[in-house]
Each structure stands twice: as structure tokens, then as C-alpha cells.
């Protein structure tokens, strides 16, 4: 009887002590958590970008001047991890000339623009970052980017050395310059020799027409198992695929003045008819949408794709890269003379720009870094490292030599014997660029390539889409 009371009391006390301890512990945890949260939020506000020591490649950025460097260091944002190491190396050269340290950070394409917009709308931007033709105009019009015009005049940068179309992308209508051309890219035909051998046909040459490509694709599709095809068209990217058909056939997606489209012209329709023919012997669109042309190609399920020069590294380092080879993008023999004239082979080309934030803490250093990155020396180095092709014509060979054992001259030869056209875009291209590839645009025709009328109708619908979008801008 008595014992049970004692027991109860003991257990009550024990419980109380336990609870008190637990409470103290919780308080402690809470305090630490709160302090941590505050420190975090402070760091987020102040630092903006202090992630990843691994990204700073320089070895001599040691502890000695870490404190001093962090105040003057510049941050670079890019979206392509393939290029990070090379760009860091070039930036280190700049730092070695007595300039601040540079940190290159990669943010993938989808998040890049969301973050950049958030930064531009009242937050912090990286000091220096890539600009793209899809977005340049809106950023320039809203004075988000640092005006480089005066720096260029003061330092005597010769704008005429760059590809004119690319320089034009980053020049505002009032003549002010907001970014310098970083690089350019072209498109070539990538093929898998193993599948050509299996079908017993000749490899692609630099003199192929789209008709030749069709015959080869058909042969491979027929000679190989059911899930393997001669060709696959990347339907979610236009630049490296069907755009080039349209321009080779004499059409356009957006005219030079960005006021209209000729995607419903007879020339464009003839080109899209060729695309339709190709699709009848190509991997079905539904499969492409699920797996992507690059994975299909690298899995040996596709004989040919067209791809841009920015993707070379991914195929150069692939498991079966020995089987892969590049040829120039096919042409369309408009005048029927059996030879390729300059205006019969067209490749889309685009170039990124190096831009700085208008509100950067160190505009002089940012401008100086941009000028260095776009100088001839740095551009040659960029090409030699195989990062990308230069924004300056005439140093293509350095790039072609960067990939030992893989001939990538198809990307540079096209600049001699073909015509380059700038990636078509309007002020707010997002409004039509994605919808035209979806249901209601070309998707229906791509899904049912046996119906020529569907493709022609799709051209008319897309033309209306683009015109409506331009009217709304």
C-alpha cells in the first residue's frame, strides 16, 4: 500500500525531471535552430553567392588573401557545366594579371532565367553572366545590364571583329552595347557508323542533300530491328533541327525586321513536307519526346541526328564515341544543278554574350573582365580548350583541333560553303516558341507524318501563332 504510493511519487518525480530536461533540451535546440536560421538569412542577404569552394579552380586562392579577395571577387553565372572548367581557367589568367579573383558558378538553363529575373526584379545579380538572344532585348530595354558603350570606346575595343549578327543581338536600338559576343555555334549532321555498316550503305558526306539523308534513313530503318531508326528529329529543339530545313528551302521563321513570318510560304511548306517525309522513316515523335534524341542516338537506336557545336563534348566523351562522326548539314538543291551553292546550305547560328549587372559593386572590373573574355587571345584559348567556337571569325581551326580523334571540321566548313542565319526570335519569343511545338502547333502533324495535309495546316496555324504574338508585343 505504502509502497505503491512511494512508487507513484518516485515515478512522478522522475517524469517531472524527465520532462524538464526534455524541455530544456528543446529550448536549447530551438535556440540553436533560431540562431542558425538568422545566420543563414543574414548570409543569404549579404553574400548572395558563396557556394562551392570546388568551383574556384585556382590553386593559389589560398587562405592568405581569402578575406581581402572575397570583397573584391567577381562572380560569374553560366548555365553550361561543360564549359565551367575552361572558363574558370581563362578567368584565372585575367586574375593573374593583377585583377580580382573570379568565381564561376553554374545554374542549369531552366533555373538560370528564373533566378536572373528574380535578381533583376530587385535582388542581387552575379557581377558577370551569360546573355542569350531569347532574352537579350527585354533585359536591355529595362536597363538591367551594365552599359558597356563607354568602356568599349575608352578601351578601344574593335566591335567589327565579331560576328555582326551576334554583336547586333546585344546592341540596343539606340546603339548602346550591353554585351560582347562570347561565342557562336553551328549545326552539323552526326551519324553512327555502326548502323550504316549494318545497313550496308555509304557514310554521309559533306555533299548530301536532304533527299540523300532521307534515302539513308529509310535504308537504316528497314535494315535494323523495329526499335532502331535511321533518323530522329528533336522536336523540342528547333535550332538544331527543322529550322534548317526551312531556311535551306528558302523560307523563314521570322523575317529580318522581326515583323512577320514566312513559315506558311510555299518554300517553308516544301521544307516541312521534307520534314514530314523524314518523319515517316524516323523514330516516332512520342518516343523522341520521352527519351530525347541524344539518349536514343547514344543507345545505338538512331543512325543520324543533327546537333549543335555546343554538344560536341557530350558525344566526344560518350561510351561509343569511336562510332560517331560528323558531316556537314545537308543542303537543298534549289536550282537543281547538282552542286551546293552558298545559299542552299543553311545552318542556324547563335551566340551568347558576356554581360554585367547594371548594379554590380565593381563595374570597372566587370567591364574589364568582359573585354578580356572577348579579346582575341582569350577567344583563341576558349577555342583551343574546346569550350566553344569563338565569337570572332577566323579562329575556327583552333576549335576543330581541340577534339583529338574526332573530326569536327563540319561545324567550321559550313561557314565557308554555307550561309549562317541568326536564330529567329522576336521580343518575347517564349509566347510562340514552345506552343508551336505543342498540340495545336506542329505536334499533331509530327505525330501523324503520313498525312501531308496535316503538315500544311500546321504551317498555317503556326504562322498565325507567330503573327499574333508579334502583334501583341
Amino acid at each position, binding site marked *: 500500500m505504502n509502497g505503491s504510493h512511494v512508487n507513484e511519487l518516485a515515478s512522478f518525480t522522475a517524469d517531472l525531471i524527465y520532462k524538464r530536461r526534455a524541455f530544456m533540451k528543446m529550448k536549447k535546440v530551438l535556440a540553436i535552430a*533560431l540562431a542558425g*536560421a*538568422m545566420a543563414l538569412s543574414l548570409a543569404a542577404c549579404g553574400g548572395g553567392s558563396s557556394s562551392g569552394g570546388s568551383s574556384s579552380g585556382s590553386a593559389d586562392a589560398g587562405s592568405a588573401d581569402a578575406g581581402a579577395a572575397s570583397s573584391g571577387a567577381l562572380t560569374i553565372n553560366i548555365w553550361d557545366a561543360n564549359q565551367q572548367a575552361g572558363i574558370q581557367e581563362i578567368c584565372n589568367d585575367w586574375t593573374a594579371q593583377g585583377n580580382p579573383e573570379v568565381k564561376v558558378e553554374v545554374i542549369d538553363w531552366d533555373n538560370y*532565367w*528564373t533566378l536572373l*529575373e528574380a535578381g*533583376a*526584379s*530587385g535582388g542581387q545579380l552575379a557581377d558577370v553572366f551569360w546573355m542569350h538572344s531569347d532574352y537579350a532585348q*527585354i533585359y536591355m*530595354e*529595362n536597363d*538591367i545590364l551594365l552599359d558597356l558603350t563607354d568602356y568599349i570606346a575608352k578601351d578601344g575595343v574593335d566591335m567589327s571583329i565579331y560576328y555582326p549578327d551576334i554583336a547586333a543581338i546585344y546592341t540596343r536600338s539606340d546603339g548602346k552595347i550591353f554585351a560582347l559576343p562570347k561565342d557562336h555555334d553551328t549545326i552539323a549532321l552526326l551519324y553512327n557508323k555502326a548502323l550504316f555498316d549494318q545497313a550496308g550503305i555509304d557514310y554521309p558526306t559533306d555533299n548530301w542533300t536532304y533527299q540523300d539523308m532521307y534515302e539513308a534513313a529509310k535504308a537504316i530503318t528497314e535494315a535494323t530491328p523495329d*526499335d532502331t531508326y535511321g533518323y530522329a528529329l528533336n*522536336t*523540342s529543339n528547333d535550332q538544331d533541327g527543322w529550322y534548317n530545313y526551312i531556311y535551306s528551302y528558302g523560307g523563314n521563321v521570322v523575317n529580318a525586321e522581326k515583323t512577320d513570318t514566312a513559315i506558311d510560304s510555299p518554300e517553308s511548306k516544301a521544307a516541312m513536307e521534307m520534314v514530314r517525309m523524314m518523319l515517316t522513316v524516323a523514330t516516332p*515523335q*512520342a*518516343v*523522341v*519526346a*520521352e*527519351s*530525347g534524341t541524344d539518349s*536514343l542516338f547514344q*543507345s545505338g*537506336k538512331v543512325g543520324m541526328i543533327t546537333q549543335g557545336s555546343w554538344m560536341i563534348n557530350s558525344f566526344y566523351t560518350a561510351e561509343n564515341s569511336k562510332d560517331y562522326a560528323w558531316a556537314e548539314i545537308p543542303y537543298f538543291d534549289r536550282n537543281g544543278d547538282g552542286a551546293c551553292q552558298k545559299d542552299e546550305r543553311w545552318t542556324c547560328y547563335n551566340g551568347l554574350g558576356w554581360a554585367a549587372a547594371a548594379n554590380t559593386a565593381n563595374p570597372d572590373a566587370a567591364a574589364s573582365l568582359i573585354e578580356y573574355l572577348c579579346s582575341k587571345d582569350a577567344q583563341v584559348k576558349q577555342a583551343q580548350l574546346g569550350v566553344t567556337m569563338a565569337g570572332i571569325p577566323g579562329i575556327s581551326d583552333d576549335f576543330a583541333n581541340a577534339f583529338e580523334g574526332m573530326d569536327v571540321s563540319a561545324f567550321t566548313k559550313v561557314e565557308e560553303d554555307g550561309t549562317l542565319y541568326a536564330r529567329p526570335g522576336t521580343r*518575347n519569343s*517564349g*509566347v510562340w516558341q*514552345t506552343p508551336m*511545338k*505543342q*498540340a495545336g502547333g506542329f*505536334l499533331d502533324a*509530327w*505525330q501523324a507524318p503520313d498525312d501531308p495535309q496535316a503538315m500544311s495546316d500546321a504551317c498555317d496555324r503556326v504562322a498565325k501563332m507567330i503573327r499574333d504574338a508579334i502583334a501583341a508585343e
Partner: protein
Amino acid sequence: MKEKKKMTLRAKKEALWGYAFVAPTMLGLIILNFYPAINTVYQSFCKTGDFGKGNTFVGLANYQKAFADPEIWQSLLNTVKYAVIEVPLGVVIALLLAVFLNNNKLKGVSAFRTIFFLPMVCAPAAVAMVWKWLYNQQFGLFNNILHKNIAWISDPKIAWISVGIIGVWSIIGYNMVLFISGLKEIPGDYYEAASIDGATGINQFFNITVPLLSPTTFFIVQTRVIGALTIFDLMFMVMDKTNAALPKVQSTVYVFYKYTFDQGNKGYGAAIVMILVAFIMLVTVVMQRAEKRFVFYN
């Protein structure tokens, strides 16, 4: 009438400390939740400019456009269809698992609990990526095991079910943990009494477990319905933009994202999201009414 008591110095001091302690949370809520919410309402009446500058008031134009847009209604239907898969299956499966795993005599019970809870720990984007490849028509595990050639996520007829299944798989662990804690609250005496009266396990489940668990069930259903109606990441990660099934699967938040971020039309995006908010409020009110009829509190 009672006269208002004057606060003593001590009480004042205490109140001050009280405010000081809730201030961080309040600030967070105001800056991160209330301000954006109010701003969204405002933006839904605007034609928005670039980078949040130069908004012009256009009244109900965005709403008129949204109400006339079949894409919005289709996306709302898609969202409801997703919820219809995720919520009931997620609840029923989780309840069954919880009942089995509530038995501490079962060997390895904590291992099983961990395994079922694991999906909750994974990043949703990573989960979606793995499922995307499982479903892949050419290389996917499912088609390889079944020796079939099913377009799990490209066939508009079944893609919405495939996406719903990912949602169920992701959520059962979380629901299960809530159910287990609910089960622990039910006194063992009820089961003892019932078995003395000759009730079978199944009888006990339907006559004791289900009614006594109804507050937990209601909580889960309500939070999951709201969660399912705001689904975005699964569709975004699993389906390519040129996937033919996308129009029949894309959720309302997906359409909101498309207009707001792909096309930079924040005003229209805000209007879409306001329609969704109104819809969710309606559903919540209906559920609150149902609570009085179906939920049994001790």
C-alpha cells in the same frame, strides 16, 4: 461592465517579450506569405510589365480571358483527376499499411516503416526523374518486365493514371506515419472487449479502427486534397513539352507556371492561380461541412 485592468509593469514586459518572440515568425509570414498573396491578387487585375515594373490596371480582362480559355478548364479537370487517384488510393493503402505495421511484435517493423517512409525523404524532382525512366517506352523497366510496348506517359488515355500512381507512391509513407500515430491513440480495451464478444479482425477494423481513426483520416484527406490540387512538379518533370499527352495531364499550376515564367505574362498567371484558389476554398468548405457528418470525435 468591468473596467479594463491596467497592465502592470511586469505584464507589460512579458507582453513585450511575447511580441519579440513571435516577431520573427510574423515577419516571415508577412514578407513571404501575406505580401506575395496580396500582390498576386493585385497582379491578376494587371497587364504586368517586365521585371515587375510598369503594371497597368486592366480590370477583369485576365479573368475574362481565363474563363473563356478551354485550356484552363481542361487543366482544372486534369488536376481533379489527379486528386481522385492520389487521395483515395493514398489514404486506403496507407491505412492498410499502418494497421499491419502498428503491430510491434512484427519482425523488422521499424525497417518496414522506414522503407515506406523513404519516398518522403527523397527530393520530388529526383523521384519524378526515376519514375520517368521506369515508364520509358523504349528502355523503361516496366515495359521490359511486362514485355509490352505501352506508352505509359505519352498515351493521353493512361498518362494521367501513370502520373497519379507516382503521386500515390510518394505520399503513402507520410500518410502511413500519421495513421500509425492515430492508431496508437485508440485504447486497446475496445479491441479486447470486441474480441470477447466474438468480433473478427475485419469486424474490429470496420467498427472500431475506421470510426475512431476518422479525425486522422479527415486531417489527411483535407491536407492531401489541397496538396493534390496544387500539384506541379510531377507533370513538369515527367512530361516533355512536346509530349502529346501533356494537354490531358497538365495541372492548373503547370499552366500557371507556363504563362508566368515561360511567357512572362504574370498578370494572366496570377488570374489562373486565383481561380485555383477559389476552387480550393470551395472544396475546403464542402469538406468542412462533411466533417460534421462523417468524423467521429471521442
